[in-house]
């Protein structure tokens, strides 16, 4: 075999299906409107002008390689959590790095290690708004979790807990979703102990509950569950 030839080992490609969608969003003008809107450099120097606004979709499918970190994502499909370790200084990485970033190691190549599925929350937030791909999942908890004795913290969502109870220092267990596609969202964290939430005032708890309810109602309205 030619050593420069690329050989497909597993093929779960959906490219043909998405190619149709990408062709539809081909960056040509699809529609337009004409509006009257303000013009001017200062709020006290404004005039009105007519503007024509065209609608120009732009769709694309990237065929993205995870490079030498591919093993981590294959591991997700297998239900295993892999990190890397520098043989020179011993630093452990999750997210993994192919080369050690310790300046004294001069980019020493790391080795793969299987990581435990226990960790601790370094910090977190409760998301009440997000970007397009995650709107239907609101509200959710985004956390940075130190897994095992990794030096770094992994971004991950925390589930199976009231968002208001999440706190820094909470011990968590990393779980794998049933259906896995090699996406970081294949894993999530759940509490591994009874939470000890930070002392929040009654007002703060009421505020958060009220706000999260508004978000849930908004999501149910715009992304009804089947």
């Amino acid at each position, binding site marked *: 075999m030619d050593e420069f030839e690329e050989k497909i080992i597993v093929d779960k490609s959906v490219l043909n299906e998405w190619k149709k969608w990408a062709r539809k969003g081909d960056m040509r003008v699809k529609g337009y409107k004409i509006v009257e*809107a*303000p*013009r*001017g*450099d*200062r*709020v*006290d*120097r404004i005039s009105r*002008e007519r*503007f024509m*606004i065209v609608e*120009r979709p*732009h769709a694309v499918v990237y065929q993205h390689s*995870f490079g030498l970190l591919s093993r981590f994502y294959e591991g997700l499909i297998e239900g295993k959590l892999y990190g890397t370790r520098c043989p020179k200084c011993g*630093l452990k990485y999750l*997210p993994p790095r192919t080369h050690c*970033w*310790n*300046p*004294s190691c001069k980019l020493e190549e790391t080795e793969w290690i299987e990581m435990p599925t226990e960790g601790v929350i*370094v*910090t*977190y*937030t*409760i*998301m*009440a*708004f*997000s*970007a*397009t*791909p*995650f709107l239907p*999942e609101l509200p*959710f908890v*985004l*956390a*940075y979790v*130190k897994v095992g004795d990794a*030096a*770094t*913290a*992994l*971004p*991950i*969502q925390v589930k199976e807990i009231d*968002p208001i109870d999440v706190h*820094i220092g909470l011990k968590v267990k990393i779980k794998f979703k049933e259906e896995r596609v090699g*996406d*970081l*969202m294949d894993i999530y964290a759940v509490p591994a102990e009874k939470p000890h939430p*930070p002392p929040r005032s009654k007002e*703060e708890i009421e*505020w*958060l509950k009220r*706000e*999260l309810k*508004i*978000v849930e109602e908004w999501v149910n309205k715009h992304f009804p569950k089947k």
Partner: protein
Amino acid sequence: MTRVAIVGAGMTRFDRPRRELQEEMVAEAMKNMWEDLPNLETKDIDAAVYSYFSDHLEQQLCFHWIIHDYLGLSGKPGYRVESGGATPIDAIINAYMFIKSGVFDLVLVAGWEKMGEVGTAKTNEFIAMASDTDWDFMVGGYYNGYYAALEVRRMHLYGDTIEDLALLSVKNHNNAIYNPYAQWRAKHGTSKITVDDVYKSRLISYPYRTMNIAEISDGAAVMLLASEEVAKKYTDTPIWITGVGLGNDSMRPGDRTGNPAWLGLYPEDEEIWPKEEPKPLTPYPEMANFGAFRYAADMAYKMAGIDNPRKEIDLVEIFNPYDGVELAAYEDLRFAKRGEGKTLIREGITERWGELPVNTSGGLYGQGHPVGATSIGQAITLFWQLREEIYKKWGSQQAQIPSPRRALIHGHGGTGCQAGVVIMER
């Protein structure tokens, strides 16, 4: 080596949406600058440094080629800088270095952004493409999430409170009402807000509400930098750039718990750590502070000969996409000890009438945040403040800080992944 001066500046209102083309907004900012630079001829300009952030938001690569010919600068060198939110401060610093090197004498810095052509959620997604798209991006936090998580860490380690964040929001919004280029004023007029208004605004990502977070904006701003010799031709009141600094930190904020590159750089800050809290491998900057700010500031302070920034600086603009960044910046720019940034807002020190006014422009939610123009717009506020031209340029004497001599502007991109600091003096 020559000294470098800012000889002129102009901007156009930050707002959303602005329906003019990007090049038309830049032209408007140029004309605003020309009001005070009657001697400037287009052909005098040696080179231009351009600042815009997102090819995705603009749906255009190499937009600066369009701007460059539009301004009548064909033939002359035009150079684009791109470093996320740090783009405009980076552009100013690049222009400074162009002149300092002796290669050029008169350099235009022009920045713009149009963020209003896609929806808000899509804008968040495009901005988040400046986070690690294989990691943080994939779990749905986006910048609202990353910055909120960083502030939760500060609340836990240092005791920052939601009230501190609200006080900052009130300060900065109420500064913006005097600024006729400010998006807040364009959208909401000139009435003052209170902490209750902040508390009533919607939760975005705990602890942040909409009023703790930067605007999505359209707008443009320009600045003209000159060597000492050439500066005299255009103005009797140049503002000197006496120090610049740059710094960087990790792309992924989660990596900052264990980044050996920082070890030993700031030993006194590594000592400041709550006893009951497990100490990470690299305690400073960790996730609670911004090491890139510190690195950039120290470089600029050294160049400008500043030993005590809190006492020797009169006026500051901080790049505050989220309120907690301002608290952290107070510490990392050495206005307060690590963990004590909050005292500056609690004691009113950084109010417009305080000892060290911060963000008289209104900052990123007051003045607005059209990324490529943001820090140029903030630097312009300092430029007019230092020249005591606020009345002339804003139509308001109330916002003029009395006789400021030395100012600092800070900018950054990512979650503090890249930062720049510039010291300006009259």
